[in-house]
């Protein structure tokens, strides 16, 4: 494994999750290429080869729509996440893109003070590295459990 590649993926995911955890959701789409893909699905769906998940985007613009809806349209109680990431495993280099897998755990902290383990899973990323800039060409968020408590408003 090229340690430089591993470091770049790790750094990208670290900055990505920090933006979510610090409620800088408007910058969340900027971690993707313009035609970047995003999917949240379950390990059960992946095991069965089923394509459909809970969030699905085929462009950065769709990610911006997601955040706009969260900020302006959807109703949910104030809450935030805390992501903890594992060490990325760079699986392959694929047409100039790095294919990498990173484990995550996410705690959800409600305004009431309740903290719960909200999700565990793995990011399956395709990362484009161009000089100093690293971007997601694709990010699949595969959660281990099929169960999501109450609602999934903020992206993972």
């Amino acid at each position, binding site marked *: 494994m090229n340690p430089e590649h591993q470091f770049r993926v790790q750094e990208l995911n670290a900055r990505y999750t920090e933006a979510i955890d610090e409620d800088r959701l408007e910058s969340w789409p900027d971690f993707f290429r313009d035609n970047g893909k995003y999917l949240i699905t379950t390990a059960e769906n992946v095991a069965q080869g*089923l*394509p*459909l998940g809970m969030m699905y985007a085929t462009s950065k613009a769709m990610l911006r729509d997601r955040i*706009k809806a969260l900020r*302006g349209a959807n109703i*949910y109680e104030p809450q935030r996440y805390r992501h903890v990431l594992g060490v990325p495993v760079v699986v392959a280099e694929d047409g100039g893109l790095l294919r990498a897998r990173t484990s995550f755990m996410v705690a959800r902290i409600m305004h009431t003070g309740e903290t719960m383990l909200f999700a565990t899973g793995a990011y399956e990323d395709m990362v484009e590295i161009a000089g100093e800039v690293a971007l997601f060409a694709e990010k699949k968020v595969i959660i281990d459990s099929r169960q999501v408590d*109450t609602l999934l408003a903020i992206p993972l």
Partner: protein
Amino acid sequence: MERIFRGDTWSFLCLEAELPRPNTFRASRLGDMPVVVTRDADGEIHAFENRCAHRGALLCLKERGEAKEIACVYHNWTYDLCGNLTGVAFRRGLGGKGGMPPDSHPEAHAPRRLRIETFAGLVFGTLGKKAAPLEEYLGPNIAPSIRRVMKKPVRLLGGYSQMLPSNWKLYMENTKDSYHASLLHMFFTTFRLNRLSQKGGLVISDGGANHISYSMSADAGGKEYEQAKMRSANEAFALEVPEVIKSVDEFGDGIGLQILSVFPGFILQQIRNSLAVRRIVPVGVDRTELVWTMFGFEDDTPELHDMRMMQSNLVGPAGFISMEDGAATGFVQRGSRGAGGEQSVVEMGGQGIGSEESRVSEAAVRGFWNTYRQLMAI
């Protein structure tokens, strides 16, 4: 659980498509009672309690899979796919010692077998001896609208569960509440996917157990929500990628939304081209698992498939439209915690439980509680 889910009602167990071949099974629930649904070697569908006759352990530990027989892991008692006990390990003992007396009949304690009926690709089961035949239970004004959606061989697209912080009844009530949809869910109103001003109606089965709320896609473009300054009408809100709500009239009747419920815990959803069945599983007094299974049809064109993928953003726990329902039922559960002696007001549309053209009505909610009270003898 006993009077409703294990009584003379029909519970949705799974789609026939979830048992794609002979010798397959799917775990499900009848209320809180675990059940296994199977398709045997001849293609027949069965369902039985997921409980070993011996000591009551779960028989089937997987959600789905293939099997010719099912063996309890605890003491290796075996069952065929109809739920018959076919083998008891060391029944005659070993070397003439131990084992079960000849007059023992463990078969008499076999897991309870459900009566099964399938309707338009949906598998329903009941333990009730007096439950009416399924189609009669659905009602003549409900059954055709199930056939309307389930009109072709189904292709599974994906699934997940939304864990609701509320009693199961609050979700069923929410589903039957045609009044809330365009007020709580801004997405519906803003994009004119569902407004109470759109032509539509409520269809309610005799006695109120089952219902349909539907609306036509066409909208007159009225300003009722804006003039009343409803929170859910936000004209400033626009999408960069409107493909999320782009749809086709695949059923050819102009109905853009049809939410159909069957008492006690089944929902069939058509929101534009987003099709799903939802199964309500009571977990505890204030916890419910809502099992979503999204589907299309085997002959979907790539374009229609892509639309269903895009519209998957509308529903489920992360759905632009439906995420709020998980929270709203929890708000009722929490808000009414200290109000056991109080009553809620369910008087939109008067007191009746009949079908009507207006969806500014809580008739289907009243129908639900009417059925509940009858079964619970309240």
